[in-house]
């Protein structure tokens, strides 16, 4: 039966209109978009069938993104062009499909494939000495942090941080952080270490790197 199904890999933007929609609600927004589109979204078997939708990596509340990844299964194979058109019409404000392709049904789950993600971070307020602060941060071999009742080391989760603009309306950084199961670096944690208020940082995810 699964041989007849179609697996789609969708790259989409989550824009400002939906930045406060959490992971589970985003999942539901996708289910509803598929239902509006009348595409034959596949559901799991069993007593509580769930839509077969698979998001690569949860995007923290408040972030926007240009590069979210979703795998979706349809009951039957459809022309990709038609799928794209139907979805585009059905999406709510706040979600835009960037690209869509059919992928092999046998590919491993997206969550197991993610390796790292890139973020662009804009601070709403100036942060004096940012370049030095960043240099000092990167010079550390460990960065012990405490989050949600758990101690962890932030430093190994940081792959790269580049200062794009120190002045102007707001300082601007690009960072690449680990996104592996049990090892996810959070940009707002980096912002906190740098000495800025995490709530005054605007974060946009620009790339998810798969294995």
């Amino acid at each position, binding site marked *: 039966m699964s041989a007849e199904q179609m697996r789609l890999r969708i790259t989409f933007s989550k824009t400002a209109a*939906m930045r*406060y*929609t*959490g992971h*589970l609600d985003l999942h539901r927004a996708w289910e*509803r978009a598929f239902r*509006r589109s009348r595409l034959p979204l596949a*559901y799991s078997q069993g007593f509580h069938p769930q839509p077969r939708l698979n998001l690569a990596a949860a995007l923290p509340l408040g972030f926007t993104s240009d590069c979210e990844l979703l795998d979706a299964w349809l009951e039957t194979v459809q022309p990709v062009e038609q799928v794209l058109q139907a979805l585009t019409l059905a999406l*709510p404000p706040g979600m835009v499909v960037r690209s869509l392709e059919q992928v092999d049904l046998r590919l491993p789950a997206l969550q197991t494939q993610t390796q790292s993600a890139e973020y662009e971070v804009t601070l*709403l307020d100036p942060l004096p000495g940012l370049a030095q602060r960043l240099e000092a941060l990167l010079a550390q071999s460990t960065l012990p942090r405490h989050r949600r009742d758990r101690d962890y080391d932030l430093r190994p989760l940081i792959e790269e941080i580049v200062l794009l603009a120190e002045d102007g309306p707001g300082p601007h950084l690009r960072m690449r952080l680990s996104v592996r199961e049990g090892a996810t670096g959070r940009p707002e944690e980096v912002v906190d270490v740098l000495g800025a208020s995490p709530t005054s940082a605007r974060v946009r995810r620009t790339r998810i790197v798969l294995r």
Partner: protein
Amino acid sequence: MTLPVLSPSEIELRLERILPGVQKPGRYTGGELNQVVKDWQAIETHLALIFPDLYDIGMSNLGLAILYESLNQRPDALAERAYLPWTDMEAAMRQAGIPLYSLETHHSLADFDILGFTLPYETLYTNALNTLDLAGIPLFAEQRSNAHPLVIAGGHTTFNPEPMHAFMDAFVIGEGEEVIHEIVDAYQAWKRSQAERPALLRRLAQIPGVYVPSLYQPHYLESGQIARIQPLADAAPLPVRKRIVAKLPPPPTHFIVPYIDTVHNRVPVEITRGCTRGCRFCHAGMISRPVRERSVEQIVHAIEDSLEHTGFEEVGLLSLSSSDYTHILELVQAVSARFAGKHLGISLPSLRIDTFSVDLMDALRGARHGGFTLAPEAATERMRQIINKPVSTQALLETAAEVYRRGYTTLKLYFMIGHPSETLEDVQAIVDLCKAVLAEGRKVIGRRARLNAGVSTFIPKPHTPFQWVPCDTVEQITAKQTLLKHSLRDRDIKLSWTTPAETMLEAWLSRGDRRLSQVIYRAWQKGARFDAWQELFRYSAWLEAFAEAGLEPDFYTHRPRPLDEIFPWEHISSGVRKKYLLEEYRRSLAGETRPDCRESCFACGILPAFADLRRENPGEAWKCPEVKSPAPRSNDFSRYTVTGETQLDAQGSSK
């Protein structure tokens, strides 16, 4: 406190700073699918529709959804939404100087022409005050001028509008679908006339179903009871009779799809309005007469249309008594045939206690299903006769067994305690009945059987046959609840109840007179808000407010009313005659039940009150008998205008 009126872009700029730091910021942004955004400058009249509680609650309110869709179809008006922020957001907004704003265009509420509150339950009252305060609008109607929006309220509580009279310019009594447009028309005509605010209020008072409290004056006896209610202007009708729509209009289908989870995150479709059962405690059943039904075709079409526009995965088929819908079996069959295999959940609440209900639910049960709920309300024959809900214990046990047999592991039963005629034996019977029901479940599915017993406390609501009876005292309620808690100890039974304090507050506010407005105001000043939320409910603030206002809470709740008492809500008519309510009260004292009025008409008063509408809409649409008599020549059956100073008659309605 007066806040400066900020422009939408200034509000957005400030929001940008505070939203990342509050809980669930998705409540405060708007921008969802199907919201309607119109060109503010190009539209003549701007309405804000307000549910004064969290977005999560208010988004599920069907009444506002109906008005939103209907108003936004007018080219000359726009309707936007506003909800009350949670305490963290309120603090952040006050600190940042952000006024309460609409979700669609982020305009301050003070920028709107009309603010329309829905007040479906009394524990929203302090929230309504807080809404106005957060918008920088004077709380008291008499302090508002032409510079302020017109502030109106509708919803079930407005059948006793008096406790909120000081804060609202006008109330809508009854159904809002038609009257809201008449209000907008009157507002526009007034605005063009460039007259002062009192002229607007007089215009509004001319609209059937609109109550303008400032045009009436109650006089009190020394005892605190009402002596009479005096209209102060020719424009003030007496009584103010509720509005109904003769025919249920096509249901709304373009529901806004929230980006975050809400309490009823689904398509609501009203299948019928009103109820013929005549349960004597039921406010909704008395005030929402007559029963009007939608056709199966219209309902199925509305579901299809709504799903296409929203993508919701659940539909709620709403009514006060689903089993009584004439075409319920046909509807259930049509819905299950039409939506089979679509992974659509369908809920059908308010089912009668019989095995037919289990068949109905079974036919609807798709892939997603919840529990099964029944409302026997009372557990002894005696109490059932008093409240006029004649359900037999045997029928309940048979139904319960059938529910468990069909694969439901949890049955939820609703009961009510606190009627003055109720004894501890009647309460013990609830315990015994719950145990017997669970035993039925265990017979069928063994240890997997669960029972949830929700036991609420009776409040004698205005416009019901029990409006003359007192509430149980806190001590009586506590004794009854203690009995339940001690005797219903079973790991498979989950008992829930309302605290006596919550019950008292709801009782005071629903039975109160105009003097309660001072209590509400003072309680709000002391920080009372979100009274419906247990974690924020502050009983002590209310008791202090009563003391400061020099009022005795027990006067409102623990005093049996003499049969000739003039109630604070006497000048508001639900269409049901006071004489009929009294007759029902007397029958309850005698333990006599009243059959379902679909069988035969018992002349509750609805038909004469709305004879014209029934005459124009014969046949199936109403469950009342047809009106054959010719229309009266005066042609004004639906209004009853009294000029000058008039003592209300004891019937409270036209004779």
